[in-house]
């Protein structure tokens, strides 16, 4: 029955035949649309020269691929696309502005490197608790490879500091030290307390102790001396630097450390180890060199990522200048 129906053996007369040219045209159209369309898609895709970089939440893979290569002076075309949530893309130590990588939407970026080296690209949007793991590298080679000058070691290495050692103090300040109040005291600090070296290598507590012993501050209260320390620290920074540091902090650090520096950022709660920059007991026992080291190297085992390949020296200085404002605010009464 089935075969009869298919081949019409049961039909008594066959007056009409299928129009063969019509059948062939139908097959041609079918092939054109059904086979031609995928072929056209394939051909259009084949002509694309840009490298497509997919951005996914780090738990699902982060940047794919996470290693790229380029040559000095040769534009590297990237098609950036997020496969889940909003991400960002920036290349560390270049100063190039970050771009958003939107879900399902291609963002085209062209990078041209002037110097060979290994560059780190990273996500600039808080995409999830492991946002900071979202990184990749670009190996840039040059036609004329130069031997890179030996990099000077970070300050904490030079000073042989153990940046992982606890630096809590057994002190409790009644009021946060104020650089503004310190300036109002109208005391000229000995120049050694205002040197860059002191700011970089000494802890505020060490400077406070030294000042406490100095004759110029003999008549001052402990709180006044803390205000002087705040003023000394503030003298090593500029408003522009602090502003720059604040921008960097909000973009890169606040997710874990909180916008108020309290270690209570949206992702920091997941780690439960994000430093509290408002805690004077830990902050005043640390030096700028310690912060510099932690930022560059990252916090071993704490979830704190390394930023040494992303931030420039100036950016790290600006960031630390801003971190100190959590202890030494200018407008504190």
């Amino acid at each position, binding site marked *: 029955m089935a075969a009869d129906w298919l081949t019409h053996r049961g039909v008594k007369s066959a007056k009409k035949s299928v129009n063969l040219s019509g059948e062939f045209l139908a097959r041609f159209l079918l092939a054109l649309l059904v086979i031609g*369309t995928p072929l056209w898609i394939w051909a259009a895709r084949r002509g694309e020269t840009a490298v497509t970089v997919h951005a996914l939440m780090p738990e699902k893979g982060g940047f794919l691929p996470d290693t790229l290569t380029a040559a000095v002076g040769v534009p590297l075309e990237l098609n950036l696309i997020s496969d889940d949530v909003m991400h960002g893309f920036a290349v560390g130590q270049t100063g190039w502005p970050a771009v958003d990588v939107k*879900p399902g939407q*291609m963002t085209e970026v062209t990078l041209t490197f002037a110097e060979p080296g290994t560059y780190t690209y990273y996500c600039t949007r808080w995409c999830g608790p492991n946002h900071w793991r979202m990184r990749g590298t670009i190996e840039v080679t040059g036609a004329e490879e130069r031997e890179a000058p030996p990099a000077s070691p970070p300050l904490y290495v030079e000073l042989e500091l153990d940046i992982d050692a606890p630096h809590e103090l057994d002190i409790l300040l009644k009021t946060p030290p104020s650089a503004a109040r310190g300036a109002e005291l109208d005391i000229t600090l000995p120049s050694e307390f205002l040197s860059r070296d002191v700011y970089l290598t000494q802890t505020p507590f060490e400077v406070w102790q030294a000042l406490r012993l100095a004759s110029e501050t003999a008549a001052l209260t402990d709180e006044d001396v803390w205000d002087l320390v705040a003023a000394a620290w503030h003298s090593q920074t500029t408003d522009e630097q602090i502003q720059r540091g604040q921008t960097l902090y909000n973009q890169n650090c606040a997710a874990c450390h909180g916008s108020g520096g309290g270690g209570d950022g949206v992702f920091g709660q997941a780690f439960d180890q994000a430093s509290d920059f408002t805690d004077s007991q830990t902050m005043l026992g640390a030096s700028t060199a310690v912060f510099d080291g932690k930022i560059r190297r990252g916090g071993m085992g704490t979830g704190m990522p390394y930023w040494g390949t992303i931030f420039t020296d100036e950016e790290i200085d600006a960031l630390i200048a801003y971190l100190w404002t959590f202890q030494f605010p200018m407008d504190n009464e």
Partner: protein
Amino acid sequence: MKRSDLTRIPVVKALLVNRWPQFILRIVALAGFVVAILAGLLGTPVGSRNLSIVFVWIAWWALLILAAVPLFGRGWCTVCPIPMAGEWLQNGALLGPRKRETGDQRSETSSNLQSLVSSLRLRPWPKRFRNIWLQNGGFLLLALFSAVVLTQPMVTAVILAAFLFLAVGAALIFERRAFCRYLCPVGGFIGLYSQVAPLEVRVRDTAVCAAHTDKTCYTGNENGYGCPWGVFPGGLIKNTYCGACLECLRTCPHDNIAIQIRPVGADLTVARGRKLDEAFKAFIMLGSAVVYSAVMLGPWGWLKTTAYSVGSLAWLGYALAFLLLILGALPGLFYLATWAGTAQRGNRRALRQRFTANAYALVPLGLMAWIAFSLSFVFANISYLWPVMSDPFGWGWDLFGTAALNWTPYLSRVVPALQTLVLVGGLAWAAGTARKIAAEKRGGTAVPVIIYCFFITVGLLWLLIG
């Protein structure tokens, strides 16, 4: 209301009988189908930026539920590309029956393909499955995974491809369009709701069919194939299983087939041919509309997350609750309503018959529920179509200059009013149908069924409009 026969208009009939218009629409749909599968497999996994999700679950769905089903019934089945490949393998031709072989003369269109076709020993579909229970099960299965299916392009692509393979597989084993008739989860509810459509394929005079010994509408002739849906048009009393494929219009030598405009919902009050599998399809569709409204449009994030976390313990609980609601609570309460409204409470068989009959009152209610539900997300999300048309894979293309258009919800202020109108209209329609069905038997009342429908409507109004 008098029926109006569209095939009396020569231009309309010529367009319907000619295979080209239907064929063009089908291959365009097939190309779209293939691109949707490719987009799902190769394109961005972000659903709102992938053609497979936006095109299939927003655009196609809107077209289907807001226009094709309510206005044309099986109109989508007329142009559906899914059975094309299988039919080609069965028939050996795309456009129409090939020339009959006479003696040793080979067909003019002979080919290896036709050798394959000739070698097929197609079987009739198994008797025990000649119902829509498999379609009911298929739809339920899809519905359970819908949160994933509707949002993940890869899953959508796999399902679309599976439909295609199933259709081809069924065509290579069984006669006619076995996939469409007995397996397609979409075809099942299209068939149910096509009963309300104001369009029908019927014979003009059943006596002509009775006298026609060849029954070419069923066996086929040189002008067309025997009904691919295995339906004898002379016996058609409802739209449910007529696939609107137009073959009978081509094969009838007596010009006895009519495509008519008729009163909406005309099939619902036809007492003959009511079946329990169709009744349960009504519950499945109504219940799914309720659950979808809660999961996809409701304010409960945990419910959405649960529906999405397929395989988890929470999801198993969700799946169980879903099935209990649709296969237990809704039919159970409806059985009570039927029991309360019938005079033959002691007669189980009669009660079951009334239960099945009354369930047809849920057909307009269910269709209106789906329309109301679809109005929400279709108008809210249809603007995703513009960028996706230009960049179907999320590869940064801009074919029509619309890739950068932002998402914009349309008619957001009007939609709640429209939904209210649709749902209340559905209730009135269901109540009217329930009364007509109740009037078929003496001593029965439609009030309990109407109360049932009322509570469902109130629930949907709460879920959709709040």
